[in-house]
């Protein structure tokens, strides 16, 4: 049961990671990155590492995608 859970979580992370790499537009990439972070949180939870899962949840799904979005907004509006 546990091995199956780990396998499912690993496959989900691999699929989501590929999706992030294949997302061309950085603005959309912030969203796929956030989903990837959530799945990585799930993997850490399944692997019984709740401390790491919490860090990943806070940094990977909220903080980093937010910074990417703000940067994209700033760069995209630049006139030249």
């Amino acid at each position, binding site marked *: 049961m546990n091995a199956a859970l780990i396998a499912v979580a690993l496959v989900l992370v691999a699929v989501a990671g590929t999706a992030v790499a294949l997302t061309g537009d950085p603005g959309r990439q912030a969203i796929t990155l956030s989903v990837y972070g959530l799945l990585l949180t799930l993997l850490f939870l399944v692997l019984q590492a*709740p*401390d790491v899962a919490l860090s990943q949840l806070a*940094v990977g799904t909220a*903080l980093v995608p937010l910074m990417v979005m*703000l940067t994209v907004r700033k760069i995209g509006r630049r*006139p030249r």
Partner: protein
Amino acid sequence: MNRRVRLLVFAVGAAGLAAMFALAVAGMPPFGGAAHPYRDLAVPAALGHATANVVASVTFDQRGLDTLGEEVILLASVIGAAALLRTRPGEHEHHPLADPRQPEAVALVAYLLLPLILLIGLNLVVHGHLTPGGGFQGGVVLATGLHLLYLSGGYRSLRRLRPIEWYQWVEGASTLAFAGVGLGGLALGAGLLANVLPYGPFQQLLSAGTVPVLNVVVGLAVGAGAVVLLGQFLTQAVAEERR
């Protein structure tokens, strides 16, 4: 360096990394097995210092020096980002007189979630030595949660309730406090970052010696650091315009 040379350098590097990685993995205990040499040392050490969350004991007690290094890295990256994103001559901060109105449902949800998330962040920081979480996780939750103000009240209310200079001071002072706790151990002759406070009763709020103190200090440092970082990015994205 042309494309061929670059590819060659990459191939040599990648092959070397692959070989070393394979060697390292071959020497590791098998995945999911019962043999955990580090656990067998870390768990008794954590219990000996009345620290219920073994991970917190490893981070702040047994390997406190590594965490001090991470604190300094965080401080350096915040200083670097603040220096790069500062308002330069030729730029001026432009404050929109009226914020674009958020949909009322979004503003309401953000308004309701704000105290809840700040409470969760404080809970994570304060109970870091007892349950999963700690200063780092709690600090990031506090900093991102604070920015719900932007969703509920707009940039102007966020700016009014979040004086960024204060957070810069908190970031610096709390990193200094971490080093101070470490030097305290040295001054008492126990060694840098040694756990010199009384350990207290196991699984109680006041236990684990210096671990909860360092958790609070790190919570302040990480929270303030993330607020400064996000604040600079937000200023650049929302309020700053080239003249």
